[in-house]
Structure formats: C-alpha cells, structure tokens
C-alpha cells in the first residue's frame, strides 16, 4: 500500500479514525522492555536491598544477617559524606560547564557555511574514545614531569612545583577536565538537535522587528530550547553522579580521599575491603539521592513524556 495515496484519499473523505482505534494496548509492545528491565534492573535493586542487610564474614566465608547495622554505619561514616560531597561538587561543576560550553558551541556551530559540517564531525571524535582511555590520555597530559598541560601551566607560572593530580586541591579539577572534554560535545549534539528542530518564523519576524542578537537569544532561543536543556541536564546529571571510570583510572580516589566519588567508594568497599553488604548499602544510598534529585528536577522543569 502506498502511503501518499492513503493520506490523500482519507483527507478528501474527511473520515477521522475513532479515538478507540488509536488507543489500543501498548503492553505487548512494551513487554520485551519490561521483561529486560525486571530481570536486569528490578532484580539487582532487590538483591542490593537484601545484600545491604547482610555482611560478608571472612572467617566463615559467608554472608551473615546484620539487619540495619550497615545503614547505621553509613550515617556515621565520615568518608561516605565526604564522597557524597565530592560527587555533588563534581556533578554540579561539570554539569554547569558542560551546559554553558555546550550551548555556546552549539550556537557557534549551527551554521550551513562551508566547513561547519566537518567541524561538527571532528567534535564528535571525543565521544568514541572509551572513558578509561580518555582517563589515561589526560593522565599523560597532566603528568607531573612530561605532561603538556603541566608544562603549559608551569611556563605561565600557574602551577609552581606541584603536579595537578598529586595535589588534593587540584586533583578533582584535573579529573573533571577529562569529563568536560569528553562530554561537552555530547551536549553540543543535543543542543544542535534542539536548535535544528526550531521553526524559523519567530526568528525571522524578530529580526524584522529589529531585535538584537542578545534579545533573540534571551527571549526566543532559550525558552524554545528549555525542554531540550532540561532533558540534557537530567541525562548528563544522572551519568555524572555515577561517575567511575575517570577517577578509577586517573587517581583511584587519591591523593588522600580528595577524589572519592560514591561509585568509587562503593566499588572499593565491595572489591577491596570485601564489604559486600556495605558496598550495596552505599549503592542504594547513592540511588536514593539521585532518585530524589531527579524527581524534584522533573517536577520543577515540568518534563513530561
């Protein structure tokens, strides 16, 4: 059957499909998705709850019931609150920088002039590099002796005798740099998609009415882009909050505990200290925090699907 004909003939006969015919059951279509998520997301969730009430006892090489002890331990654990602070700081700073840079670069690259397609292509290069390898790449760039960034900072007198990743004050910034470099282009792509989806008429009439570039951006582009910005912040925020690869590869949480994120702390409790129960408790705590923040965010931004 050819689509064009159907469309045309139906329009002329002015027959509309009854509502009921459109609202058929979605369940069969969603079933594979639900099945996958139940097995691989709902089950792990309950498994973690179960695990958080147990702890591995090395002497007996078995998990033993500890009730709420892990949760009590969690609320008294200074390192956990430190990790939460680091994670929030990391998420907030990276998010703001990626958002602002991403928006700016998207506006800059949103042009059909020759060369811009090539530039957009080059920018996506950062996305195809595994974060673990990006971490190594920035480890070399920020190397205390041979790093290009270290060298550049030293030659303009900014770094003194210290290394970027070896100093608790700058180590987190050094890790964030890798994250910002890798994920700003992802934001650019999302915003470019948003910009391209906009109708051109409001902009044309604004120009005719003599609106300045800033007015157009502030009064037209930004409001029309608000939903896209909201979803970009949500998706990126979720991933930033769980960040693991960069810190694992670049600093392993150090120096001291200055770059411990919640994901890394949960990992360390689980695999280095074999505290499976406590590791699960940290993971659940992290999940609850992000769930609350995400819910509030979705409510405030009125995102609807």
């Amino acid at each position, binding site marked *: 059957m050819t689509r064009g004909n159907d469309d045309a003939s139906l329009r002329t006969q002015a027959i509309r499909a009854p509502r009921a015919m459109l609202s058929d059951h979605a369940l069969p279509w969603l079933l594979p998705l639900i099945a996958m998520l139940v097995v691989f997301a709902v089950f792990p969730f309950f498994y973690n709850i179960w695990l958080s009430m147990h702890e591995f006892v090395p002497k007996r090489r078995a998990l033993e019931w500890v009730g709420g002890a892990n949760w009590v331990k969690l609320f008294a654990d200074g390192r956990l609150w430190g990790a939460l602070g680091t994670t929030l700081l990391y998420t907030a700073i990276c998010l703001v920088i990626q958002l602002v840079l991403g928006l700016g670069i998207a506006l*800059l690259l949103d042009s059909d*002039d020759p060369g811009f397609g090539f530039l957009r292509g080059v920018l996506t290069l950062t996305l*195809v590099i595994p974060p673990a390898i990006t971490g190594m790449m920035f480890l070399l760039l920020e190397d205390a002796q041979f790093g290009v960034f270290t060298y550049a900072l030293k030659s303009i007198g900014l770094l003194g005798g210290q290394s970027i990743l070896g100093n608790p004050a700058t180590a987190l910034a050094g890790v964030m740099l890798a994250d910002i470099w890798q994920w700003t282009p992802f934001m650019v792509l999302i915003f470019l*998609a948003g910009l391209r989806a906009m109708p051109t008429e409001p902009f044309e009439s604004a120009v005719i009415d003599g609106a300045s570039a800033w007015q157009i951006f502030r009064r037209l582009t930004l409001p029309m882009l608000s939903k896209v910005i909201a979803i970009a912040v949500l998706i990126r925020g979720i991933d930033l909050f769980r960040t693991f690869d960069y810190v694992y*590869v670049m600093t392993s949480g150090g120096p001291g505990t200055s770059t411990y994120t919640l994901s890394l702390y949960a990992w360390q409790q689980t695999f280095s200290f074999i505290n499976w129960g406590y590791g699960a408790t940290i993971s659940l705590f992290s999940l609850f925090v992000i769930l609350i923040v995400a819910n509030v965010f979705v409510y405030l931004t009125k995102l609807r699907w």
Partner: protein
Amino acid sequence: MQNQTIHSNGYRVLRALAAWLVVAIFAFPIWYWFTIAFRVEREIFELPPLIFDFTFSGKSFEEVFGISLGGTSSSRPLAGGGNFYMLPRLWDSIIIAVFSTALAVTIATFAAYALSRMRFDGQHHFVFWVLSTRMMPPVAVAIPMFFIYKQFGLLDTYSGVIIVHALMNLPLAVLLLKSFFDDIPVEIDEAALIDGASRWLIFRRIVAPMAIGGVAATAVLCFIFSWTEFLFVLTLTQTGLKTVPVVSSTFVTSTGTAWGKMAALGVGAMVPAFIFILLVQKNLVRGLTLGSLKQ
C-alpha cells in the same frame, strides 16, 4: 534556525575563525594522543613536549595490531606473539558492541513506537521508571549480575556482556527512538488504521521504515556506549574475553606505562566507532532531543 539573517562577510569570517579555534582546542588531546601512537618512544618524554615535529615510527601500532605499516620500521609484526598484541580484543569489542546494539535497538524500537503512538495511564511514570534503571551505580548492577551469571554459566561469555550492555543502553535508546517516532505525523497511522491495517503492519511497513535514519543513529550511539563501557566488562569477565577499554590497563606495567602502545590501541579503537558516527551524524543531530519536544 540558521540563515535567519544575511550576515556581513566580516561576521561570517569571525564566526568561522571562532568555530575552528574551538574545535581545534577540543581536537588537541586527540592529536597529541595520535602523535604519541606514531612517534619514537623516547620522544614521549621530551621537554618541552613535542607537539608537531616528532620522529615518525609505526612500531607501537605494529606491535599492538600485528599489522605492518611498511618500510619505516625494521621490526617484523609479532603476529599474536607479544604481550601487547590486541587485535583479538578489538574483535571481542566489536562482537559485543554489535550484538548488544542489535538487542537494545530491537527492544527499544517496539517500546518507543508504543510510547509515541499509544498514550496510556501512567505513561510519564513508566518512562521515568525506565530512565531510573540508569540511576543505579554501575557496581550495584554488576554484583547481582555477577552472582546470577555465575549460577547460569554466563560469566566470562559474550552473551553475558552483550545482555548487560543492551540493558545499560535501553533507557537512552527508548527516549531517542521515541523522539524520532514523534517526528512522523500520527495521521499516517490513523489513515492506515482506517484502511484496516493492523498496528503491527503499520509499524513494520510504514513507520519503522520511515524512522530508519533515527534507528541507525540510535544504533550508533548504543554501539559507542557499549564500545567504551568499562566497569561491567571489568567485573563480568575474567580471562575469556576483554574489550578495549579494559585491556588498556595492561599497558601500565611495573616498569612504567607503555604510552606509545596504549595510544596506538586508543587510536585504532577510535576508527570504527568514528566511521559509524559520521555516517549517522545528520540523523543524530535531528533526534537527539530525546523526546523532550513533544508530549
């Protein structure tokens, strides 16, 4: 919204200059990494760092991929011999990325079609729930999976990693595909429904083919996220298989890091994913609004 006004030539030149400068800054680490992969090893540790004038050497690349780059190097490729021979790991990565992408995109396409075309009670909450499965710290998913996989013999197998990677990509794939389906006028479905076509037929013959560009773009993103994933492969495999991100730690040895070879692996691993992303870039730039524009 481009070309909204006719800009002066001076503005266009300035804008182009700014664009090239910004992209050059982002490209710099990749350029540097690229030169590390192709320079003689001792020049990695030169001060001031050599950025443009380095001595070319294909040795690292040859050792990692077992491919000869011609006469520039005297060493014969170590076909499968050396510790740093990584071609099989590239294959592992490709197999896992291809199959997990196929699985994720198939499941997500069905779901996204329903979410785009059939409104149901609690749809918003359902989508948020789908998204929330991405909020668990990866280690919290990896541990339970480790134990089930152990039970069912999926540990250290392709299938095991493929399933986890598909799961990890589902939320984003569903959102992305929904936004592509939303772009296709719903009147097309209505018309076909009146003609007596079933939902299935409409999906298979009309809407899915129309959204094929979006499906391809989604597939490429899934491929890249699987290609670059680190923690699940680290936890769920032992010796049977390893993907590129995980083996990168092989190059950190007790006698120092083999930067040249690691960079060679990184550069080699970039190529397939980058080709894919270039192929679908136009579609990506249309659909990456992740369903936020329509309700």
